[in-house]
């Protein structure tokens, strides 16, 4: 009996969810994930203690949660980007790949499941810290609405960054050694997010900044501290064509571009894997 399109989709979705579930479990059981994230959070708290205090004292819950999301998104991706770098290549290293490739689940479905699973796991420590801060703020400031803003910040700032970084961290080590990827990724993160656009050509404060300058500014309403603005054209900087005037539309465009790039990279990973294994 022929399966309908809906049945085929349902079948593939079930396999994808299965892969996501077990990949997530395996990642969450990885002790180094909690240690690395713990160390980064500690560093972040120590180096940005005044910013967190300021966020905690800010009477505007929306501003406070946006600032917290930005602070987390500046450093924590370095940790999970490095941690996720072995997730796809290890199937071959461990010798599990032939066994899974011999199942009737399409490789692309498994890859998508693995991607979603490890991204959810990578987002777990971020969620603990982010929502932990939101709860602390809600209790101390008596503003439970902060939890809603924390959820919004997680959805439009942290999650797109996790999905963007996760795709590259899974895919790129297929074409270069994972340690090299980690070194290059840390370099990229500082270059692409933290270096001032007037210092050198960079994607910082542009639509392609995974730290999420546009959504933070336009969807969460945080316009930065002092002279620093998270998004928009920077006088005297190159690559300003990637920094249109901030608006809600450009904020959504920034998110869409990050997700589209992630999808392209994942499709590339699938193509590379298919070519090298068959």
């Amino acid at each position: 009996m022929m399966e309908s399109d809906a049945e085929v989709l349902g079948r593939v979705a079930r396999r994808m969810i299965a892969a996501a579930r077990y990949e997530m479990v395996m990642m969450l059981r990885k002790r180094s994930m909690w240690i690395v994230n713990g160390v980064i959070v500690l560093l972040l708290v120590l180096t940005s203690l005044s910013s967190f205090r300021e966020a905690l004292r800010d009477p505007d819950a929306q501003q406070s949660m946006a600032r917290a999301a930005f602070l987390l998104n500046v450093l924590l991706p370095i940790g999970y980007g490095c941690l996720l770098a072995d997730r796809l290549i290890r199937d071959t290293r461990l010798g599990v790949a032939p066994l899974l490739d011999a199942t009737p689940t399409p490789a692309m479905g498994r890859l998508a499941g693995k991607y979603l699973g490890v991204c959810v796991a990578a987002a777990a420590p971020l969620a603990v810290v982010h929502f932990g801060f939101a709860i602390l703020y809600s209790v101390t400031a008596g503003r439970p609405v902060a939890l809603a803003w924390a959820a919004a910040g997680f959805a439009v700032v942290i999650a797109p960054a996790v999905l963007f970084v996760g795709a590259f961290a899974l895919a790129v080590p297929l074409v270069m050694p994972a340690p090299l990827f980690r070194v290059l990724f840390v370099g990229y993160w500082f270059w692409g997010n933290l270096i001032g656009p007037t210092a050198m050509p960079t994607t910082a404060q542009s639509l392609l900044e995974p730290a999420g300058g546009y959504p933070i500014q336009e969807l969460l309403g945080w316009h930065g501290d002092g002279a620093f603005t998270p998004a928009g054209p920077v006088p005297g900087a190159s690559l300003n064509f990637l920094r249109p005037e901030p608006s809600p539309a450009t904020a959504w465009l920034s998110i869409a571009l990050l997700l589209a790039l992630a999808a392209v990279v994942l499709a590339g990973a699938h193509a590379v894997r298919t070519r090298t294994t068959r």
Partner: protein
Amino acid sequence: MRIEISGLTKTYRGKGPALDRLDLVVPTGMFGLLGANGAGKTTLMRILAGLLRPTAGEVRIGGYDVTARAGRLAVQRVLGYLPQDLGLYPDLTAREFLDYVALLKGIDDRPARRRRVGELLDVVALTDDADRRLRGFSGGMRRRVGIAQALLADPRLLIVDEPTAGLDPEERIRFRTLLAKLAGQRTVLLSTHIVDDIAQTCRELAVLSHGRLVFRGTVEGLTKQADGRVWTVVTSGPAPASGTIVSALPHDTGMRYRVVGPQQPAPDARPTDPNLEDGYLALAQQS
């Protein structure tokens, strides 16, 4: 499921052919595949499991063309595959790993899946260790998990590549018996370089050498290849120089050698009845 292979060639980039115009028909039941390391057995297994694309030739399993996507998927739905270099996720327990593979194999119904996983853990005697992480498993225990995952979806085609490697003698016998039992209505393709595994389980077999088929027939047929070529030599002097020494055992008056070769290796050498290993060696000498 009948396997029909014709003109199958696989060439890896920068190397000679791993399989060279192979023609072979494998009927339903237990079938052995013998060959030295590098003979092309694993390449053939990987092509049959849909993991490798052949360079040329045709492979049909149960009527499905394995080289086409639809055919490959159809075969993989009824396939149990135990690869030679078996890998497992160290962070999962045996039960979780089997559950994961069962899901990927399409066993969606949770109670049925749990039941099947439990049954197979029992079959491979891992029930007591089912909830331990695979990281701590010995080589033999890992192999047993591999065997269990191959049997998950009640496969009609079972491809097992060097399945008894790493198993202790008792486990090996248990697994061989299990394979023989499974072979009733299924096709079980057993690839190995351990001749005894084939001798104890298969009626029919093929022998590969340098990617080519050098023998296809029965176990008795391969054994007959050594008729008149097996000798026993008892000597206190040097070992026989001609032929291949199969075994050397201490004897009251020196050493007793079992030799396979076309010529009598010593004047006092006595002809001996061949076994499958002798037949395999005699074939290797001729090809």
